[in-house]
Every structure is written in structure tokens, then in C-alpha cells.
């Protein structure tokens, strides 16, 4: 124990000083030296031994019973020492795992990257934050040759790495679909078959797919069991739920999806989200969906990106900065 030598002298002098004065200063010194011990991974039995030696040096005539008692204490510390070392090793392994996952998360970001497109007359805001390191939510923008904009929002039931792996598959299936099939109901029908074939039955994926047609100011959409979004009617200053029926992806290979459409007017908004938004919790209480709308309404005068950022910050704080589920919120605002 080479590292113990300078500390040993220090310990002895602190102990001596303390026995003479019982002052706080020596105790503060003891605290500092403990930090050094922990940093150098000194097991508790070594510290007890240090104490034994210091006492023997300071008081050569220590009573026999006291010396025996200290040896007894030392013996009881051995198993603590092993537990301490084990803890140390497990902690190292944990940090290795964490950095491996960080690499994977990084890779996922690259794989699933999507850029928010610039569409005349449509203000878009997006925020997507994973609860843990890897995101089980997914969103994607596709601009078609006809100028239409496709927006996918999906959520794997479950979190973390399995969910994230699943999402990579969804993304590549979507990429491989031919352009002309980019209608919401066709896309969901195709993805449904991919998920049914490739994902084990215990895993469910929900998706909302919307297609915005700038020329008509129209939005078409279909949902595969996804958390309903909201439509904001500017003229009536009113939110309503976007109702769209459809089975979760991967359950029945022959499912057909219904397609809905709606014309957007100036100032109207479409809000797409995952259940990480609507199932925010304050303490043990799930928030009500009216509360989500209240918060959205509070920031609705802002630009779409500012708006989603502010809403996210609000809920992040509400949940003490610890998300329980991946959080994705997309806002489309029709400007003209």
C-alpha cells in the first residue's frame, strides 16, 4: 500500500491533534483524508489498520483489551472491503456499458436523422427527446416531387434499446417505399406488413402519418393506433382531437387503414405527438389532456419551433427533469 504511506503520517498527526484538542479542524482534516482514501480505493480494513498503527505509535502502553478490540474490528471489515471492491468493479462495468450505449445512441441519431423541410406558408416545429439514452419515438419528414410533405410520427410500445432498434427498421422500410405510394393509408398498409413479418408479436408500433399538400392547403392522414393529435381551429379559437381509427402496426397483416382529410386555414395548427407528451406525470398523477392543450395554447402565439421548445421545457420541469417516456411533439402552423 504505497499510497497509504504519506497518508499514514498525516492520519497520525491529525489523530494526535484531535486527541489533544478535540477541535473541529482535525475532524475536517479527517474528512479530507477520507476523500483521499476513497479516491485511491483504500479498503476499510486498511484504514482500521492505519488507526491501530497510529494508536500504537502514539500510545505504546495501550491496554491489551483495547488492542484486541481493534483487531476484532479489523476482522469485521474484511468482507466490507470485498464488497467495496466489487462495487467498484461493477461501477466501472456500468460506465463501460453506458459509453457503449452512447455510441449506439449516436449511431441511431445518424441513422434516423431527418431534416425539417422549409415549406412556404407552413411553419414547422419539432422536438423529440428520449427518456433514456436511446429514443423509441420516431419522426420523419419526406418531401415528395409533387411538393407534398409527408410527416411520420411513431412510437414503439416500450423504451430503450429494443424500441430504438425497431425504429431503425421502420425508417428503412419507409425509405424503400416508392414515391408514388406516399399516401398515408398506403404507407401504413405497407409498414404494417413489414412489422408483422419482422417484429415479434410482443412489440407494438403505433404511427400517425400525415401528408400536407401545400397547393390545396389540405392535410391527409391515417393512424395506426397512434396517440391522437390535435387540430387547432383559428377562426373559432378551439382545439379538437384528431380522431383517426386504425389498428396498431404488426397485428393483422391484412389491415386496411382509413384515410381522412381536412383543409387548413390561416392560423390553423396541427399538433402531432407521442404518449410521452400526454402521459406526463406530476408526482404520481398523470396530467389531463386539457392541461397539455392549455400549455400548448399558452405558447401558441410563438413561432412553431419556439412553441414546441417552450412546451417541452414546461413538461420537463413539471416532471423534475426526468422524463419517464420518450417525448415527441410536432407543430404545423399554417401561416397564410
Amino acid at each position, binding site marked *: 500500500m504505497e499510497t497509504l504511506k504519506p497518508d499514514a503520517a498525516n492520519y497520525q498527526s491529525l489523530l494526535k491533534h484531535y486527541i489533544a484538542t478535540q477541535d473541529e479542524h482535525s475532524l475536517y482534516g479527517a474528512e479530507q483524508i477520507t476523500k483521499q482514501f476513497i479516491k485511491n480505493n483504500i479498503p476499510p*480494513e486498511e484504514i482500521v489498520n492505519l488507526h491501530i498503527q497510529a494508536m500504537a505509535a502514539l500510545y505504546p502502553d495501550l491496554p491489551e483489551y483495547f488492542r484486541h478490540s481493534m483487531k476484532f474490528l479489523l476482522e469485521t471489515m474484511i468482507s466490507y472491503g470485498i464488497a467495496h471492491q*466489487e462495487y467498484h468493479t461493477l461501477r466501472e462495468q456500468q460506465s463501460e456499458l453506458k459509453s457503449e450505449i452512447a455510441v449506439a445512441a449516436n449511431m441511431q441519431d445518424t441513422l434516423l436523422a431527418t431534416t425539417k423541410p422549409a415549406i412556404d406558408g407552413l411553419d414547422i416545429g419539432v422536438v423529440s427527446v428520449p427518456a433514456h439514452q436511446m429514443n423509441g419515438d420516431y419522426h420523419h419528414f419526406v418531401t415528395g416531387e409533387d411538393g407534398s410533405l409527408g410527416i411520420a410520427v411513431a412510437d414503439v410500445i416500450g423504451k430503450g434499446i429494443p424500441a430504438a432498434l425497431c425504429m431503425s427498421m421502420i425508417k428503412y422500410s419507409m425509405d424503400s417505399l416508392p414515391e408514388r405510394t406516399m399516401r398515408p393509408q398506403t404507407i401504413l398498409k405497407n409498414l404494417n406488413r413489414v412489422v408483422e413479418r419482422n417484429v415479434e408479436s410482443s412489440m407494438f408500433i403505433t404511427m400517425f402519418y400525415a401528408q400536407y399538400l401545400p397547393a390545396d392547403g389540405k392535410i391527409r392522414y391515417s393512424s395506426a393506433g397512434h396517440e391522437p393529435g390535435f387540430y387547432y381551429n383559428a377562426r373559432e379559437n378551439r382545439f379538437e382531437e384528431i380522431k383517426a381509427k386504425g389498428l396498431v402496426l404488426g397485428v393483422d397483416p391484412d389491415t386496411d387503414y382509413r384515410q381522412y382529410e381536412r383543409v387548413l386555414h390561416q392560423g390553423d395548427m396541427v399538433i402531432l405527438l407521442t404518449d410521452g407528451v400526454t402521459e406526463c406525470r406530476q408526482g404520481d398523477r398523470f396530467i389531463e389532456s386539457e392541461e397539455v392543450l392549455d400549455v400548448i395554447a399558452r405558447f401558441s402565439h410563438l413561432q412553431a419551433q419556439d412553441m414546441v421548445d417552450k412546451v417541452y421545457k414546461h413538461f420537463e420541469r413539471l416532471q423534475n427533469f426526468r422524463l419517464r417516456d420518450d417525448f415527441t411533439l410536432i407543430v404545423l402552423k399554417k401561416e397564410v
Partner: protein
Amino acid sequence: MTMDLQSCVTIEKEWDIVKARQLGREVAQKAGFGTVDQARIATAISELARNIYLYTDGGKLCFEIIDNVEQKGISMLSVDNGPGIEDISQVMEDGYSTSGGLGAGLPGVKRLVDQFDIQSEKGKGTEIRAVKWVR
């Protein structure tokens, strides 16, 4: 290399664990180990002996002083005719035995000594050799 005569303890009853500790500690003392290392050796012996006591029909622990030109130490040999360990990697994993509160387990023994070797054959038994050097 010169070696003392081996001293062994047969492990059948829980009391034999104490005997093994006692004998091991005496050998360690003779080899010149300090107080802390003596305590560590006793703890390692406890773990080895407890494994024999709990999981086999019997076995023994033998100690000897190793004294070669460079260093001095103690060798602890644990031999049993138990069921053997099927997955050694698993029992050597941290947290495998400790999670049930069973004690330090074999990884603990490995940490307490300088050299550790284990061989096991299913149905035949297990042999563990642990060596610790005087610092």
C-alpha cells in the same frame, strides 16, 4: 523451492470452517503475513470452506508455506468430491453469489489473494488453488 509439510483440515461440519481458519491463520503467521493480510487469508479460507460445507458431501482444505528465492507466501488448496461447477464463468461473475447474501463468493476469494485457479468436473468435484504472497 522448499515447502513445509502440508497441513490439512477435513470439512464436514460447520465447526470445521473455524478449524480451517485457525490452521490457515497459524500458517499465515508463520509465513510472515501482517495482521490485515492474516485477516484476509482467514476470510478467503472461510469462503472456500463454506463452499465445501454447503454444496458438497465433504472435502478438505490444505495449506502450505511457499518459500522460493524471490518471495514467500501461502498456498491454499481446496479439494472436494462434490457435484462440480457446471458454469465456472457464472460463479466467477461479480454479484452472482453476493446478491443472495451468501457472502463474498469465489470472486471475493479471488480478490483477497494474488493467484487463483479453479478446475471443476461435473460429477467429480472441484479443485481450487489460491496463493497469496507476503508483501
